[in-house]
């Protein structure tokens, strides 16, 4: 802290300072290109979308500033509210099936050891496929004829062939099941990893204390798995909420708008009807709902004791 000490170290500290500055410059230069591309592709369009949502844009022609008119029109449109409702049904319906299924699979996979990792691989094959190709495939599986796969199963059990995808009541559950078929195994990867981190000793101790399998699951597995479950639920919520490709391929939003989710409405309004001002308003609303859902889940699961243990 004395003046002499400072004076003698000035030269070396200056040299050190210039080296530090140089490494900072080199570091930034190395991150720069990746950062620019990510910002240009993922961030910039969001701001541009917000800007466009305040303007009337139709068929690629910008017809000027309209303030919040696109949003006002959107929220006055009963079809938009219906689409939000359909999105919630699709998202939570899929979650309600996919998460328990992934959890059961993960527990089975861990118990089976090497065979378990083979099973995980098999279950992941549909996830590795293109969603639109999955849609084509299932359209054929579900073809309403005794020559189709599901038609043949129906015929064998005495039910006449039904077109599940054009039935107003059954179309949505069918879409949900296909969505779950496609990607629930992705959740199983993360849950299998999470289960592997729970110390086996805890289960032994629980057995000594006389806890049954169900109680051990409820008191050990579930709370300790909470962080992984949070990740899985958040990821699947985002994935299902933004699902659009299987809907385009399977139902095209029909029958009578029964499968028109917000994502499909965005696709239809923005890319088919080319009402791009309003389409961008939907995109911004979707973006906000995504953020809200993530925050909500973090809050719910953060309150559980698992995080502390």
């Amino acid at each position, binding site marked *: 802290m004395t003046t002499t000490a400072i004076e003698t170290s000035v030269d070396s500290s200056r040299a050190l300072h210039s080296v530090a500055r140089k490494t900072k410059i*080199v570091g930034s230069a190395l991150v720069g290109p990746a950062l620019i*591309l990510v910002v240009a592709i993922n*961030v910039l369009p969001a701001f541009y979308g917000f800007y466009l949502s305040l303007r009337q844009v139709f068929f690629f022609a910008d017809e000027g500033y309209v303030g919040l008119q696109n949003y006002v029109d959107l929220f006055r449109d009963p079809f938009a509210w219906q689409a939000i409702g359909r999105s919630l049904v699709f998202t939570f319906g899929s979650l309600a099936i996919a998460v328990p299924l992934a959890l059961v699979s993960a527990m089975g996979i861990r118990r089976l050891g090497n065979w378990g990792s083979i099973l995980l691989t098999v279950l992941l094959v549909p996830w590795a496929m293109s969603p639109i190709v999955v849609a*084509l495939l299932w359209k054929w599986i579900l073809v309403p004829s005794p020559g189709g796969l599901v038609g043949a199963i129906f015929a064998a059990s005495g039910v006449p062939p039904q077109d599940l995808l054009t039935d107003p009541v059954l179309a949505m559950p069918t879409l949900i099941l296909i969505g779950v078929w496609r990607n629930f195994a992705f959740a199983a990867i993360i849950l299998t990893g999470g289960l592997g981190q729970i110390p086996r000793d805890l289960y032994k101790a629980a057995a000594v204390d006389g806890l049954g399998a169900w109680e051990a699951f409820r008191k050990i597995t579930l709370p300790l798995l909470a962080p992984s479950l949070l*990740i899985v639920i958040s990821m699947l919520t985002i994935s299902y909420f*933004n699902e659009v490709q299987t809907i385009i391929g399977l139902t095209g939003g029909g029958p009578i708008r029964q499968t028109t989710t917000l994502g499909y409405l*965005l696709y239809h309004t923005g890319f088919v009807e080319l009402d791009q001002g309003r389409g961008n308003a939907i995109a911004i609303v979707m973006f906000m709902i995504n953020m809200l859902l993530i925050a909500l889940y973090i809050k719910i699961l953060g309150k559980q004791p698992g995080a502390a243990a």
Partner: protein
Amino acid sequence: MKTGTRTWLVLGCLLAALVALGPIVWAFSTSLKPTNRIFQVPPELIPSVSTLDHYARLISEGVHWAFLNSGLYAVMAVLVALTLGTVAGYSLARYPIPGKQLVLVLFVGAMAVPGFAVLLPTQLLFVNMGLYNTYIALPLLYAGHILPFAVWVTRSHFSTIPRELEQAAQIDGYSRFEAVWKVVLPGAKPALLAAATFGFLHSWNDYVTATTMVDTPGLRTLPVALIFFQGFHGRDWGALMAGVIIATIPPVVMFLLFRKYLIGGFADGSVKG
């Protein structure tokens, strides 16, 4: 009790495997049947008469060009994302960077927000910039989509490699670049393969970006070409299922070859995130 549980477990697994793979096997079976036997009742799982006509028909319709486009776009996107991503991941693990925390949050955020949410403004941006309907539109977008994941897995990996390793190489007379290229990078193979596999799957499997960003038939990807084929030829299920099979083989083979790294990459990322 114990053997009973085991039996149920095995039965459950078999059922799960059947549900996962059955539809794909059925599609393959359909793609080999002559058109007049496709709707045969009761359906045959193993075709008694088989033909490659449906595959030949896809080629006569030029679908193989779309296959080639899909492959080229995916490879270009992966190369760009891996190059930029590895450099950025290394730099984030080793260098002091102003606002590093913010940069990391940005990459993680970009990973979480789905591309579809910003697809519409992106289309308008590309139209205004003259990038719409060009050969680089899709590789550029896919590279941007997979780059955050590439940065994330490589950074996580480089953080676990001790600095002493490359310092020792530098003492031996290597330049820093040589030290990284010859000593650090070969060890990062799992992270690079995880990013490459994820990137290939993302790019190859996309439909909605491809159908909204290019228009010319010569620029189409395989999924887009199949949907157009369906539009023109209605329900030619034999040819369509042949299309499903050729669209499924590359990503599934890629996934099967590198599943270890891919699954490891997701598990790592999630534990740390």
